[in-house]
Every structure is written in C-alpha cells, then in structure tokens.
C-alpha cells in the first residue's frame, strides 16, 4: 500500500472552471505538501499544510486537510491553460524518516 494516493488519476476541464484533486494517506503525518510537475520537468512546490492546520490558501490554490480521514484536497480556482500539469501530494512523517513520500499524481488538462 502506498502513502499518498491521488484521485482522480486524470482530470480534464475547461479554462475558467475549478479543479479539485484529492489525496489519501495511511500513516500519521507531520505535514502534507502539494507539488506540480510540467511534462518532463522537475517538481515544483506549491503549498505545505501542517498536521494541525485544516485549510490553507495561496493565490488561486486552496488546500484542506482532514487528519481524521487521512485525506487532503487541492482546489485550483479559475483554472488556466497554463495550469495543465501533473499534481502530486506528498507527506512528511516521523514514521517514514526524513523523506517525503509521494503519491501517484493527478494529470490535469485545462482546455482553452
């Protein structure tokens, strides 16, 4: 079983619509992070939410965390074609050592 599994695996929307991606994890965490990856490129950090936080905003991004359900969601509002990328959640956990554990990612396509 994997820590950090995203749902859906792929999402296609029109420009201007909102995109919601979900992430589930299995162990207790210190924090949960979201990263973006353009095709063939490195991962770029978007936002970090600590285990004692429930919601966080950054620009058009809104992240929620429900530790009782071991789940998080990433909402991108008013999407743009430039938001087309893969989005990964990742968790820090003392149980896992000092590494960040990534999920399988959601491939988002925003059509102009």
């Amino acid at each position: 079983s994997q820590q950090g599994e995203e749902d859906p695996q792929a999402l296609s929307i029109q420009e201007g619509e909102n995109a919601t991606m979900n992430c589930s994890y299995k162990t207790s965490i210190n924090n949960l992070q979201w990263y973006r990856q353009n095709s063939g490129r490195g991962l770029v950090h978007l936002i970090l939410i600590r285990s004692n936080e429930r919601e966080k905003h950054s620009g058009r991004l809104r992240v929620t965390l429900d530790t009782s359900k071991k789940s998080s969601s990433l909402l991108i509002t008013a999407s743009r074609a430039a938001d087309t990328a893969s989005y990964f959640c990742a968790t820090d956990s003392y149980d896992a050592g000092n590494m960040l554990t990534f999920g399988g990612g959601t491939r988002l396509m925003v059509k102009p």
Partner: protein
Amino acid sequence: EPEVTQTPSHQVTQMGQEVILRCVPISNHLYFYWYRQILGQKVEFLVSFYNNEISEKSEIFDDQFSVERPDGSNFTLKIRSTKLEDSAMYFCASRVTGYTGELFFGEGSRLTVL
C-alpha cells in the same frame, strides 16, 4: 534564486555499464535526496543523505546503487551495472531540514538503458 542543478540532462548507456548522475544542491541545505520516476508514473524515493552518510534508503536502492558527496558541493548517484529497468528520470532534491519543509528539485537526468 538558488536552484538545484543536475547533469547530464539525458544519458544513454548500454546495459551493464556504470552511470554517474551529478547534482549540485542548494548551498545552505543539509538534506539531500534522490528520487526516480519511470515515465508517467509515480515519484519513488531512492535515498536520503545527511551529515555525509545515508540516513534513509528504499528497497529500490540495492547494492547496485551508491551515493556520495565527494566535495562540498556535488552529490552523486552511481549505478554500477545498469539494467533495462533502470531507465527512468532521476531527480535530485534538497531541503534545509529533514522531516519538514519544502523540497527543491532539480530538472532531472533522463537515463535510457539500451
């Protein structure tokens, strides 16, 4: 803005050959990582490195793999005898502290084993 740099960007090698992938982490970072991503799949942890030694490694990181920090700036991943299934994108990353905080990734080294 400081960044993690990786070389080469793409390497093609024959099965059984040794490969060294190089990384220059951000200078004030203390924790260094290698991750692997097979085309279109998830990002898999290989190894973390702190205070000049391996602190965590995954089951993927077997005896064919090694890491070292030969000087104050470079961080290398060596694959001793490459296999076809080693073909992947290899990402180096670093961060200031372990257990928390943003990971900064390089652009990756694409390894193709023929």
